[in-house]
């Protein structure tokens, strides 16, 4: 990278926080995204605040250098893989937290992880009730930028639905704040839908294409005090899917409602069942594992009783094993990470949303590509809001076997295409979706127009959002 840029970057953040060292660049060429090609950037900069980010972006624009924002580096779908010789703006030093207790909201810097905010909010008996499965390393802002979901989504929806506003540094260096805080006289973040169109929404899931999110303001809720943990067994896809729909129709407060096919659950339990204290069980064709949470005991008890009735109404039976949902929810910072790594395989994922009644199509599609390409994998999923279901296929491979890895890359590409045709939608336009989508020309043209308007030099994460 041009030495003048490095000199100017050093003036902005100090020498200590800029690097072009070969070893450091190498470590920023990858993220937690597996089966992805590393790309060596030209420099790394670690700003301390939004003003420094603004100056850095102005500099990048002046020299026409590609910029990739990065925080926890835990994303799984190439969201933070940099550009060749580009600039990585690493945001982990932005760690301010400001609570607006009366407004039931909190504003966090782009370097604040879910673990850190959980600890902070717990002291106030509050929480941000949707957790990515990588909560210990994922930042709140990163999760907003990738439009994620996770435990808690079954009741509260995807992370984006908790966002009240963002502070963004635009590709020309302008700093804007969206939502109620666009009004400089506002007492804090209290209303996302203000001053017309949902500008906040433009940045949710934008993967850094329209600017760098430096702060996010999130809704916070009083922590649930009362929980019911239960498992419900079904013999057909239709039964379990209709049960999930009915749970929502009856406003049952399932904070985390997961769906597992029998063999997938057997696989998980073989790996970590004993470690998690889940008793051995002959799991049925389909299992719904649900944590009902509430701030009021009467609501929780009433929801739990109704869930049992609905289960039976749909031809299911109450399994009664509480340890599985208990581990999913109470151990939400750990359970999923452990389940993802205990088996030793590397995997590539393909997160997407389905309708709950279409969940079986995701299962069938992944099974089809597994058979075709000959690899091990699975998918399970969970309810993610009003009427959606998040499926998370894992395609396993041996990291030391390039042929095995290539097989997964090919299968992944095909799976994206076929899933799209089942009606599935991605949370975000990760690079590989651009080959998979079709019949969306007008939509993509509008997206491209927005990109060109906001980032005419195309310096921000240029390969993302379909790589216009």
């Amino acid at each position: 990278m041009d030495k003048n840029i490095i000199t100017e970057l050093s003036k902005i953040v100090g020498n200590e926080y800029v690097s072009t060292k070969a070893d450091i660049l190498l470590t920023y060429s990858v993220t937690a995204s597996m089966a992805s090609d590393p790309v060596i950037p030209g420099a790394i900069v670690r700003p301390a605040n939004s003003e420094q980010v603004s100056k850095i972006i102005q500099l990048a624009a002046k020299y026409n250098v590609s910029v990739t924002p990065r925080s926890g580096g835990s994303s799984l779908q190439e969201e933070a893989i940099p550009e060749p010789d580009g600039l990585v703006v690493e945001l982990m030093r932005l760690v301010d937290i400001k609570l607006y207790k009366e407004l039931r909201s909190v504003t966090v810097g782009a370097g604040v992880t879910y673990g850190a905010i959980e600890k902070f909010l717990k002291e106030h008996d509050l929480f941000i009730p949707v957790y990515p499965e990588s909560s210990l390393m994922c930042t709140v802002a990163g999760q907003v930028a990738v439009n994620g979901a996770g435990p808690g989504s079954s009741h509260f929806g995807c992370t984006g639905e908790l966002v009240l506003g963002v502070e963004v540094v635009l590709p020309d260096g302008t700093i804007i704040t969206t939502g109620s805080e666009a009004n400089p006289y506002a007492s804090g973040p209290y209303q996302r839908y203000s001053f017309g169109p949902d500008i906040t929404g433009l940045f949710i899931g934008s993967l850094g294409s329209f600017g760098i999110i430096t702060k996010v303001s999130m809704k916070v809720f009083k922590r649930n005090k009362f929980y019911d943990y239960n498992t419900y067994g079904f013999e057909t896809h239709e039964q379990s899917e209709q049960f999930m729909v009915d749970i929502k129709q009856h406003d049952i407060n399932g904070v985390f409602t997961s769906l597992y096919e029998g063999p997938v659950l057997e696989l998980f339990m073989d790996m970590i069942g004993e470690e998690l204290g889940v008793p051995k069980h002959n799991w049925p064709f389909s299992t719904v594992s649900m944590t009902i949470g509430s701030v009021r005991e009467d609501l929780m008890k009433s929801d739990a009783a109704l869930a049992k009735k609905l289960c039976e109404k749909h031809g299911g039976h109450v399994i009664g094993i509480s340890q599985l949902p208990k581990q999913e929810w109470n151990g939400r910072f750990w359970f999923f990470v452990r389940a993802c790594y205990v088996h030793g395989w590397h995997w590539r994922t393909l997160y997407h949303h389905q309708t709950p009644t279409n969940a079986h199509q995701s299962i069938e599609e992944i099974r089809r590509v597994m058979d075709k390409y000959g690899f091990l994998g699975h998918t399970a999923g969970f309810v993610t809001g009003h009427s959606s279901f998040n499926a998370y296929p894992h395609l396993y491979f041996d990291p030391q076997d390039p042929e095995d890895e290539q097989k997964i890359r090919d299968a992944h590409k095909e799976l994206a295409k076929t899933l799209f045709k089942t009606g599935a939608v991605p949370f975000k336009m990760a690079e590989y979706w651009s080959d998979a989508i079709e019949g969306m020309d007008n939509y993509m043209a509008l997206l491209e127009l927005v990109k060109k308007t906001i980032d005419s030099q195309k310096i921000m994460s240029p390969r993302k959002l379909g790589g216009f």
Partner: protein
Amino acid sequence: MEELMENLAQCRRCGICRDAVYEDKGFDGICPVWKNTAGFETSFMRGRIQIAIALIEGRLEKTEENAESLFSCTLCGNCTSICAAEFDPAQCLESVRHVLKEIPNEVRDTIAKKILENNNPYVEENKTRRDWVKEVGFDIPCTGEVLYFTGCTAGFKLPETVIATAKVLKAAGVDFAVLEDEPCCGSVMLRTGMVEEAKKNAENALEMIATSSAKTIVVTCAGCLKTLREDYIERFGFDLPEVLHVVEFLKPLIDSGKLKLKKSDEIKKITWHDPCHLGRALGVYEEPRDVLKAIPGVELVEMETNREAAMCCGSGGGLRSYDGDLAKKIAADRMQDAEEIGVDILATACPFCEHNLKDGASSMGSTIRVVDILDFLADSLE
């Protein structure tokens, strides 16, 4: 090498080893180096593993500069404590240092050379390490059933701890020996990847220990404990007598009343710093706490991170020698943890921790007294 590469491949680059705050399990940050440096990816285990793989595979040139991150690590093992994958990252890094030994590192080489030449890393005349015996006021033989293996750092840098230990053992009625020309255990050689040199040194140490006719070896250094108890047996296949840290050795003597402690009306608020080699490496967490709690007037208060999740003092893994400023900065950070709970005294049971934490306290102007548990125990003898 194949096994090492398989292990390194277990890292999925999730980044849990950077700054995870996981209250349920007591973690409030993971890597002390990341926290106390500019914080680039190379400063915590995820990045180090990427560097190690690239150096081994030849994708990164094997230069001292490119290998810096491999040595800027205390090997504290906090990353291992939280890692969800099926491997031990800290142990792997130690192995990486060994397989990449060809990469120049003057500090590492000098320490190993001194140990092989002088039986210790500090001075030329090793026998001076026994000079403290003149100050204890009683004779200490060179042979006996209980051998007190003093360790180089306590022996040369913190003789007061050695003297205190001798007094406490005597007070408990223990007949013990100290070697005439005690060798280094070689811990720092193992941690910095000088395995062949460490083995050579260990063979010498084993011979000298054998001259004592000891049936039990007692140590005051957590590094010596891990090396003698674990590495000599598991890595070198040596047959050694039982090795105990003095806190493990003394606990039953306190419980049975053989070691009598004087009453005190003064309440002292004390915290315990878990040395990484004693705690995370060997699981000795409760014995030192029990010993402290048995001392009249002690109010034991825990720092926010303790036991498996305790933050490191900064001196392990050869970091104190490789980058002393960073080691002291980490120590000051740990002392800040103690400041936050308002204690009078921070006790530990490792001369490396004690020495570095004292420097850390001094650099930040902390008035908390940093002591070895044996110093404190000796002051409490009847």
